[in-house]
């Protein structure tokens, strides 16, 4: 035991050396990092101050500014590209995008992005994709679609963002077939469908007709970009054996809007055994001002809470018929009555 203790003793001296070296190394790392980052930021500020006015003039079509920008050193290109492209994240004005694309092309930055696309480092590939998508470089749609199969999941998701920004209809089939790709973030899949809107619908309907396994995903997608053309198939899906599919179909109908032909399906879904389906059906009836629908819906104020809330919200939108049902309920006691009173109060407050 004493031998072991003396071994430990010897090793603790070694430990002190390691600890001291590490502590000193970390202090140096903090100092060096701070100096390096401060230097980099100062350089960025200088470059931004120097180039921002030129970029503004260049985007406005000033030939002199463009000529000046074309003479810049190659290692300043990323800063210039950032100045041109970063505002496009929030400003999606087509004219602004076209100006940016024109300037980037004139400055020969596109071949630079091409090189980055082939980089072994994933973040560089992602940066190139964001740039190409942001400026809608439609001649690169193929390369961006190919990036959907990149080995890195961040690059694949960035490619999806880039296609959403690009809005090139050529990429739609590639996007729609990846609707079930779980390696792509669900929200990004939704965002790209939202970006294209109703342009996706026909592809979705064609695929849905032959692919019953993924019906849930198609129903969710139609909830984002569906139009009146999707109503018949959504009504058909309200009879699907899978409750999540029925609920998603009702949710999609709620977003698209219910017409006279689809109304009976929605009313029938109000009696579904699954609460989520009933809730979505109740939500789908918003704005239907006829007395019978309002009366049917009012019965669901006593349903499961999720259904009752949606029924109440729909009744609130049903003008006189809905208000009459809510007023009749509001006089009572309990949670449904309180819910009815809340809807009446909300209605008054919003007016």
């Amino acid at each position, binding site marked *: 035991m004493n031998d072991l203790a003396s071994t430990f003793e010897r090793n603790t001296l070694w430990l002190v050396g390691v*600890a001291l070296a590490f502590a000193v190394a970390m202090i140096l790392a903090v100092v060096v990092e701070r100096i390096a980052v401060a230097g980099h930021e100062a350089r960025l500020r200088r470059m931004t101050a120097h180039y921002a006015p030129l970029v503004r003039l260049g985007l406005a079509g000033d030939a002199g500014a463009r000529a000046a920008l074309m003479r810049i050193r190659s290692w300043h290109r990323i800063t210039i590209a950032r100045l041109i492209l970063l505002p496009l994240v929030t400003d999606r004005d087509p004219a602004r995008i076209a100006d940016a694309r024109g300037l980037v092309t004139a400055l020969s930055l596109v071949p630079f992005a091409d090189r980055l696309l082939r980089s072994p480092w994933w973040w560089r590939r992602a940066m190139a994709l964001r740039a190409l998508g942001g400026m809608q470089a439609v001649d690169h749609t193929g390369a961006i679609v190919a990036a959907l199969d990149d080995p890195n999941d961040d690059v694949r998701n960035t490619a999806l963002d880039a296609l959403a920004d690009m809005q090139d209809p050529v990429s739609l089939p590639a996007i729609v077939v990846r609707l079930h790709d779980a390696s792509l973030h669900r929200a990004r899949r939704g965002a790209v469908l939202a970006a294209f809107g109703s342009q996706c619908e026909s592809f979705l309907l064609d695929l849905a007709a032959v692919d019953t396994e993924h019906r849930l995903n198609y129903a969710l997608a139609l909830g984002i970009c569906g139009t009146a053309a999707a109503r018949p198939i959504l009504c058909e899906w309200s009879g699907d054996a899978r409750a999540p599919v029925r609920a998603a179909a009702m949710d999609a109908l709620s977003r698209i809007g219910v017409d006279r032909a689809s109304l009976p399906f929605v009313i029938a879904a109000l009696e579904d055994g699954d609460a989520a389906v009933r809730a979505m059906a109740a939500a789908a009836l918003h704005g239907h001002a006829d007395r019978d629908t309002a009366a049917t819906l009012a019965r669901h104020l006593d349903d499961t809470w999720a259904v009752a809330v949606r029924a109440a919200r729909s009744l609130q939108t049903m003008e006189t018929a809905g208000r009459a049902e809510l007023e009749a309920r509001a006089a009572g006691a309990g949670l449904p009555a309180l819910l009815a009173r809340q809807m009446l109060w909300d209605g008054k407050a919003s007016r």
Partner: protein
Amino acid sequence: MSVTTALAAFTVVVTAYFVAYNLSQFVMAGVAGRFLWRYQRRRNPRNLALVARLAAPPFVSIVAPAHNEALTIVDSVRALLALEYETREIVVVNDGSKDDTLAIMTREFALVEAPVAFEQPLKSAPLRGAYRSLVEPALIVIDKVNGGSKSDAVNAGINAASGRLVLVIDADTMLEPDALSRAAMPFLEHPDTVAVGGYVAIANGCRIEHNRVTAVAMPRSWFARFQIVEYMRSFLLFRLACASRNGVALISGAFGLFLRDALIDVGGYDGTAIGEDMDLTLRLQAYYRERNRPIRIAHVPLPVCWTQAPEDWQSMRSQRCRWRRGLLQVLWRQRRMIGNPRYGIIGMGVLPYIAIFEGLGPLIELLGYIVTTIAFFLGLLDWQHWRVMLAASILFGAATTLVSVFLSDLSTRKYLRPGDLALLVTSAILENAGYRQLNTWWGCVGTVQAMTGKGGWGTMKRKAF
């Protein structure tokens, strides 16, 4: 066994414990550094814009409990209303305040008593009324009888929340303007996400305007300075390392974004838990893992909010003793998870680590000091060994804290003045010579309190910003 042999054996055990702890810290630093590096690479304006590009961003209910917050409530609510996230509502729970909290809110936000219907799946003290604002439609105020704990108030707020996601904060939490967008991202990216925590930074010394941190600076108090580096170490090493392996065991009570359904499933916050935030996080982990349901609890490694740290001795002592009691209570309650492969990384990695290094840590350290003192009086102490161990302990402690300072500076760049950075580095070194030992002592006091059932919640002296 002679006393010398026993002492040698004890030395071996303590040294092995010390080496294992420091080794684990460096491994965590590596894992956390890699996680942070990847997070930083992914952090760009286009990613943050995703929420705005969605057809229907997730609706978030912000639950803010308020008990005697008359001085700060208006600024707090205004700051919440100004968050850069459109689809949200704010549920303020007036938890039986004895001051003018409700009256001030009524005056400032034109509150009127209004019907607000909601189910009450979570238990809480009786409600007295519900109020809506005529000028801020997103604001709901629930007035209730004081339930004796923050948990009770938060449960009432969760009941009233209509969002799919619920953000639970402390009354004094100051959120970063983009905190919600950042915290919502994991929910958008991974469908298995049930909760998201974030890096809670210390606001002492910072300039605060209307409940927003507008300029970051180091405080004058050394207590607060030590806590800043302590929080950096906690949030940027251990929690990031856990998050990178999907093993988050604690979402701070100051900032936690949850799936409302998940909160309802586990019965919300437990009013009897001293460490209610860790208790809830572990119950979420247990609930999902016991049912073989996928669960992901994410952690945002950048400051999402700011909070005030205690600066006086008494507040510090009561806070640390309470944290200690909370930790031991949670470990005892969730003891079935420790070393149980059914709970994955939580059962086999995170909880055993917490039990060994956080649960036993203060006791082993104190035992070390006691044994050293006894050995000194018995003339059995090898001073050379003792000095070397002490030096190694302080240097390793400083080195690991400096790693977190480095990671913090690299990723957040909050303390921009060179003087502040120098103070951070100095605090990281000095923290190990005195402050850490003080925490060890309070940890032991907290352990005794936990075993004897003594010790209350305590009060924290707040300073006006």
